[in-house]
């Protein structure tokens, strides 16, 4: 099962958390004071740069000591009402019998500092006052003035960038577990470019090493400079917030990235940055136009069309975006890339099923996947099991049958995910089958 290594190798125990020993100790002591029943502060604010283990520490602690970690993402709620519904309720159901202990984890708390969420901060403050369970907040920058009241209420725990040696050590462990031969030099270079951010180092490692037996200096060449990602975020900000088309166009000039690459970043950040439906529709009209330019450039090798594509895609989103987004909206890595990782396995299973159907029913695999697979999935999921021979007829593996049941069997499948630490966005539940 392909999985992001950053998830796969997230620490399972507190002892596995890399570096920041003092911070870990401070957190442990604070949790101990909760266990004893009298914490000096009811909340803790873990802060510091990205990818150094703040969230991992809380998750590992929960796992090791039997706490349910209820995770709320700051971008999920924007006002007091919602905040109370999500956090307030959980905070009142502390169990005294130790049956289900809880920690509330508020991620990206600096993200709610925006003016739209003013109510959110004061609600959080009241909830901290009343809570019977530990509340842990995580932030990159806790020094926003709006967070002042919360700082007072919280134990402040600082996390620092990780040392190069600590990162190398962890990367080495991962390579051993994945059966990848690699020299210290190569790992050293990966650690170097991560600038103390273990998550990004692991990301890079997976990007260059997944599926390989050995990793060499040469393999690293495909990696762009890490701060290029930072540069892209920066550029995106300029593009979306540009006052003129000229300004938007200029934002991508220093990037040394293919316009098509930047395009995918713009495309996938547009829906979060542009929240007014009319404006988003306009932005997508223009992005779709730019896409057509790319197609023509490709087809006719007519490179001079690029000079139209670029202002249309950059100026397009800048001009379309008139209303500022509600609250803090950070720029993200393109969703499409994550999707490919996430669903690789599913795609392969589906293809294998389609081939099996195709070979028995005189169809192309495409038609088999489109016209037959859903019906067969439905029949397998709904027919009386004792008479279920259709799976044998096609020689589906157990994994394939399970997949079909999961997709065409009904609505139950999602429950497990929710239970597992990540309290998903409460609002956006998908609707029932129509």
């Amino acid at each position, binding site marked *: 099962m392909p999985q992001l290594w950053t998830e796969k190798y997230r620490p399972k125990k507190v002892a596995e958390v890399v570096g920041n020993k003092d911070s870990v100790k401070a957190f442990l002591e604070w949790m101990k004071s909760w266990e004893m029943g009298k914490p000096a502060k009811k909340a803790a604010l873990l802060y510091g740069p990205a990818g150094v283990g703040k969230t991992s520490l809380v998750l590992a602690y929960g796992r090791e000591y039997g706490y349910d970690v209820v995770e709320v993402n700051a971008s999920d709620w924007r006002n007091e009402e919602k905040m109370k519904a999500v956090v307030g309720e959980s905070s009142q159901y502390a169990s005294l019998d130790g049956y289900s202990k809880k920690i509330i984890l508020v991620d990206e708390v600096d993200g709610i500092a925006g003016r739209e969420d003013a109510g959110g901060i004061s609600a959080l403050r009241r909830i901290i006052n009343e809570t019977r369970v530990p509340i842990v907040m995580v932030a990159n920058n806790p020094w926003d003035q709006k967070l002042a009241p919360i700082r007072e209420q919280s134990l402040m725990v600082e996390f620092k960038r990780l040392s190069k040696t600590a990162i190398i050590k962890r990367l080495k462990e991962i390579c051993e577990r994945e059966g990848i031969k690699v020299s210290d030099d190569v790992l050293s270079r990966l650690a170097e470019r991560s600038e103390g951010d273990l998550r990004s180092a692991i990301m890079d490692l997976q990007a260059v090493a997944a599926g390989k037996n050995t990793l060499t200096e040469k393999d690293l060449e495909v990696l762009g400079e890490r701060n290029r990602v930072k540069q892209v975020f920066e550029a995106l900000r300029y593009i979306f917030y540009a006052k003129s088309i000229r300004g938007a166009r200029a934002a991508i000039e220093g990037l040394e990235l293919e316009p098509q690459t930047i395009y995918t970043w713009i*495309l996938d950040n547009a*829906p*979060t940055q542009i929240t007014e*439906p*009319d404006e*988003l*529709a306009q*932005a*997508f*009209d223009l*992005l*779709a136009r730019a*896409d*057509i330019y*790319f*197609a*023509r450039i*490709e087809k006719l090798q007519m490179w001079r069309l690029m000079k139209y594509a670029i202002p249309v895609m950059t100026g397009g989103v800048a001009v379309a975006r008139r209303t500022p987004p509600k609250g803090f909206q950070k720029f993200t890595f393109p*969703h*499409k890339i994550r*999707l*490919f990782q996430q*669903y690789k396995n*599913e*795609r392969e299973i*589906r*293809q294998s099923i*389609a081939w099996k159907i*195709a070979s*028995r*029913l*005189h*169809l*192309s*695999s*495409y*038609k088999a*996947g*489109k*016209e*037959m697979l*859903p*019906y*067969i*999935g*439905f*029949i397998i999921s*709904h*027919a009386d099991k004792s*008479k*279920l*021979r*259709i799976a044998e*007829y096609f020689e589906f593996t157990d994994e394939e049958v399970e997949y079909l049941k999961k997709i*065409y069997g009904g609505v139950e499948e999602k429950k497990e995910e929710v239970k597992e630490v990540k309290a998903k966005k409460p609002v*956006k539940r*998908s*609707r029932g*089958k*129509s």
Partner: protein
Amino acid sequence: MSLETITTLPWVEKYRPKTLNDVVNQEEVITSLMNILKTKAVPHMLFAGPPGVGKTATAHAFARDLYGPNYMEDGWFVEINASDERGIQTIRDKVKMFARQIPMGGEISFKILLLDESDQLTDDAQHAFRRVMEQYSSTCRFILAANYSNRIIEPIQSRCAVFRFRPLLKKDIIGRIKWIAEQEKLEVDDAALETIYEFSEGDMRRAINTLQAAASISRKIDEKIVYYILGYVSRGEIRKILELAMSGNFTQARDELRKLIYVQGLAGSDIVSAIYRELFYLDIGEEDKLELIDLLGEVDYRIVEGGTEEVQLMAFLARLAAKSKKISVGR
């Protein structure tokens, strides 16, 4: 027996016509093929017609009638699906392998190769294939099946006897479904039959699949059950995407769209068709609907022109979302 078979065999296979006499609703084609059988002078043939009307089944039935029940096992007949065989080279290799050896002991001196979905071949591949047809015509006859004969190049068409399979009529589909229901001891009411037909769009395969899926939950099949199944197997996913966009969850709609394209591997043109079907029933004003239909046509064209499927479809969803928002504000 029938209890067992509900879940044992796909009915599209079980009720596939075995001989030319079993093929229904294509009288003209069948009469000609019967004549060919009598003389055993088999030309190259092009079977053209919409999906699910029996082209592949007829080719198999023809071969069985010609060579006997072991027509495949004995190596007389082979099928290649053009949409799965990328590149002319594999086709040529396969064809050569197949056509080179003449099976012994028969009174017929040639084999038959069925090239299904042959309109999926590129022009280049078709030109190469044409030469292959000539080269091996003494030992191998070809049946090409295609949805659109106009996508087959002239030189191939002119070397083939072209048989047009007509679209199935309502009575053909309903008649066949009723007959299968009888064999399987199902009770299907009229409204259910009507719905199965309407959704099938003349594709028998789809109609039979729907019936079998319905039978997997109940022996008594009414309209409600049919709709329930359709929600699962086809309309459900597209409708969900449209509804997500209309209710303001654009990113979720986008994510679902991407799953269709990249996980299920659906072609953009098929997604466009499915959206087109749903568009008429959406809860938006008629004027907006018209604008969206026009936009969808543009999306369709742009995808053919080389536009990226997901991007063009996202632009459509974003426009749909904007239209829906106006409606809800208006209320």
